């Protein structure tokens, strides 16, 4: 990311080849029409280029940051669709309110190693817990929408999210001490 912030196009190309297809899949999972998802992915990757200098490795992984850029982009799309007649250009990608940087503690730092262990932990989750995380994170559903889709009460979804996150933490902590 530091190279991209300096304007290194080769580094940007590597990032693009690795992540742009995943971002496209994510945008489609969140409701982007297949015909529009290439264009939207382009917009997200352009935002990544413009904002590369804002990426702070102390605050999380590159993938986590890319996720937030895609989310902010979708959020601003929705906002401008609600506001203005169709066909007019949208705002810039900055309408999602980001907190000012709070002091980061050691525990927020997710190393590449922890990333792999988190990925492995996801696979070990019970299917119903994995389903709510997939619904919420990958497809951008609200917990109410997850509840409707999975035909369980909202409280159950909240519990599953809590259990899933607790379990992920537990599994990760277990790996770290091994």
């Amino acid at each position, binding site marked *: 990311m530091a190279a991209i912030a300096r*304007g290194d196009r080769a580094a940007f190309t590597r990032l693009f080849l690795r992540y742009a297809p995943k971002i496209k899949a994510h945008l489609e999972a969140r409701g982007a029409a297949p015909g529009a998802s290439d264009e939207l992915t382009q917009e997200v990757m352009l935002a990544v280029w*413009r904002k590369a200098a804002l990426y702070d490795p102390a605050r999380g992984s590159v993938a986590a940051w890319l996720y937030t850029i895609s989310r902010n982009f979708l959020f601003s799309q929705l906002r401008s669709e609600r506001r203005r007649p169709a066909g007019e250009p949208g705002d810039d990608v900055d309408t999602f309110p980001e907190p000012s940087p709070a002091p980061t503690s050691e525990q927020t730092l997710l190393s590449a190693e922890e990333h792999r262990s988190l990925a492995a932990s996801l696979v070990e989750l019970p299917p119903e817990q994995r389903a709510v995380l997939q619904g919420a994170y990958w497809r*951008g559903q609200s917990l109410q929408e997850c509840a409707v889709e999975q035909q369980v009460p909202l409280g159950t979804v909240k519990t599953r999210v809590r259990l899933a996150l607790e379990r992920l933490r537990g599994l990760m902590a277990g790996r770290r001490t091994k």
Partner: protein
Amino acid sequence: MTPRHHVPEHGLVEYVTGACTEGAALAVACHLSLCPTCAAEVAALEGVAGTLLEAGAGLELAAGTLESVLARLGGTPQRAGHEEAPAAPEFLAGCGLPAPLLRVLPSNDRWRTVVPGMRVVDLPFVVPDGAIRLVRFKGGVTIPFHDHGGPEYIVVFTGALEEKNDGRRFARGDVSIRLPGERHEQRAAPGEACVALVVNEGALRPLTLRGRLLLAIARD
């Protein structure tokens, strides 16, 4: 002092995934700026998001997409290490407003009185039947018993709000979330004025005569 009243975990999840409303996102962002505990939690939740993105199967892009992006890149990306928030206007100096709020302030130069003891700055959001405002309650004023037509999110910046029912006190950085059907009466703690972000996603429904009168004379 770190906040004592936080955003529940499911609220943080919906913030991270972008599934919440604009008003809720603004309230959560303001809280996160003042609450290291929830900020660390959000960083962890974003880590989960990143892992899911990393683990997702990709979809092949149309031929030429990379070339077309490269052609649109322009020069060097912006340089700033952080996006600077604008400075607070003079009449809001000393309110300790966090960056997410400063970024959405309109160019007003004063408070607008709505009812005696309560002044506001309207924030530029469109909420049917509701409002998103920065509110200044004079110390000691009460907000008569009321219900909510939609969710309510309050984040306190100065002074404190107290719940009449259970005595809970909300001070700097604290979040109060109320849903329709949750009725309450609040009071700004005596002394220092209470400045807070108040997000109402539905109309307030006063349940007392005094409340109805105040609503009737309130200037929108």
